[in-house]
């Protein structure tokens, strides 16, 4: 009996050690810098969108290519919610991915994702489950670069990065796809330069006046994405007429 107990105990201890080792390996594992996606040399696009063929210059937005599906069955009006995927980052062609600070990249992704959700969620509420009425929002920041080493000197704080993240030449690629079929419903490649001189040197850059340019640029791109969606959702002349003929409030207090 006691031998049996000892056997079970050994198995439990063995399993615990294995789990602990696995956890430690997982925690200590450094992200492979090569896993960072890189803007291909000389390429027009990053390769992030599922389809670039239908993009055309958008007359309402400078330096922007876009596509909106106008199909009667599959268009923006047929969806009422969105799943927001984590923002992807493509580093600049000449950047050394091994020098890209992980914490800076995470701070950048988190801030931009929150900015996108903040500007869009009143029109496309965020949900977590896919379905026929749900779009999947995919966004990428393209051309993020490695900045200079930061000499924090005596004022060093744990939030400071060893090296800054340069978003001075960043552009944005975004698409909304059907969350069930993956079909592209709207897409935009925004190359408008909003981030001239913008760098991120701290994990909490959004609270630091020194990095205000980065906040403004990221907020600016998020707002442009929302403006693009608002314009894409505008009713055509024919749709306006139909909506006007159709709409009648349900009320009995109406003028005689």
């Amino acid at each position, binding site marked *: 009996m006691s031998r049996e107990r000892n056997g079970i105990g050994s198995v439990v201890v063995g399993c615990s050690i294995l789990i602990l080792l696995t956890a430690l390996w997982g925690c200590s594992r450094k992200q492979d810098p090569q896993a960072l996606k890189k803007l291909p040399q000389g390429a027009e696009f990053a390769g992030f969108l599922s389809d670039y063929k239908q993009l055309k210059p958008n007359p309402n937005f400078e330096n922007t290519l876009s596509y909106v599906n106008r199909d009667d069955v599959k268009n923006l009006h047929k969806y*009422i919610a969105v799943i927001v995927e984590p923002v992807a980052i493509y580093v600049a062609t000449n950047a050394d991915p091994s020098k890209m600070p992980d914490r800076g990249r995470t701070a950048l992704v988190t801030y931009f994702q929150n900015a996108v959700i903040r500007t869009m969620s009143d029109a496309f509420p965020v949900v977590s489950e896919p379905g026929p*009425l749900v779009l999947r929002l995919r966004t990428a920041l393209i051309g993020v670069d490695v900045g200079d080493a930061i000499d924090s000197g005596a004022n060093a704080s744990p939030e400071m990065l060893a090296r800054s993240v340069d978003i001075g030449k960043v552009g944005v690629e975004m698409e909304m796809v059907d969350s069930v079929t993956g079909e592209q419903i709207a897409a935009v490649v925004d190359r408008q330069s909003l981030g001239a001189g913008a760098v991120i040197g701290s994990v909490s850059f959004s609270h630091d006046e020194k990095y205000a340019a980065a906040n403004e640029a990221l907020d600016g791109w998020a707002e442009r994405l929302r403006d693009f969606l608002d314009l894409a959702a505008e009713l055509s002349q024919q749709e306006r007429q139909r909506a006007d003929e159709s709409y009648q409030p*349900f009320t009995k207090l109406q003028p005689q």
Partner: protein
Amino acid sequence: MRKILIAIPAFLWQGLWGQEASTFRAYVDTDLCARLMLGPITPGRIECSQKTAKDRSELVLVRLRNNMVFSVNKSKMIAPLVGQLAEVTGDIKVKAGRMKLQDVRPIEGSAIPTGDPDRRLLGTGRSNESNPKTWEKIRHELAMMPYVSEFDFISFTLSGSEVILTGWTVRQTNRDEAYHRVKDIEGVETVINNIDILPLGSFDMQIRAGARAALQRVLSRYFWGSGSDIKIVVKNGQIILLGTVTRKADSDLAFIQCNGVANAFKVFNLLQVQSSPKKSAQTSGFGTSGRRPS
């Protein structure tokens, strides 16, 4: 010091909830009747409240002073008073239209003094005060809202210079935009916004998708690229069909189709039947047509 320690958490909690403690007189109604039967509390409205309460439409309070609708956290407290007046006390969140109930006390209409603003919902015959041009401008502005889909229904009432916006929407932007569009119209002075934001839980989303697919399959002519004549409001498993169709048979067909949608436990058919797609201003409501939720 001790008082400060007690006051700080209380202050923080109040800030978090964004509430104001309040006592007011209210009509105990259902979500369905409160958002569709604006105006005086007539016998028809009371009948609507009682019938839809039996059909498990959510219970709400309508503040007598300004027709504002509040959902409540403890509907059991007001369930015995459906179709009656009550004095209610609790913490309200005006913008969200919610109330945390503390106390409910039934009252008689006769107990409200003459001339008290709370009597305004108890009177009748206020329907001729509105300017038809203002009414049409409001209607047109609301019709042009780009993010209104087949899952939103926004209605309004105009009484003098006061507009009450009501209905249901899945998007916050529709609630806000309706308010901003209407408040800027000449002749409008006050806007009460009773538009309810619908939950997007997975069951309701499945019901919406199922209902739209079922209706589009057999009644596709009422749907177009950016909208539809038939509105499918889904809230907590219930479907409310609104809008217009041209034949009674289509209304019945829509009702049958929605009854077959998985997870939907109740369908209220409030579709209006009109022969022409361009409607006159003389549409019917519960009170005038005698139409009742099916």
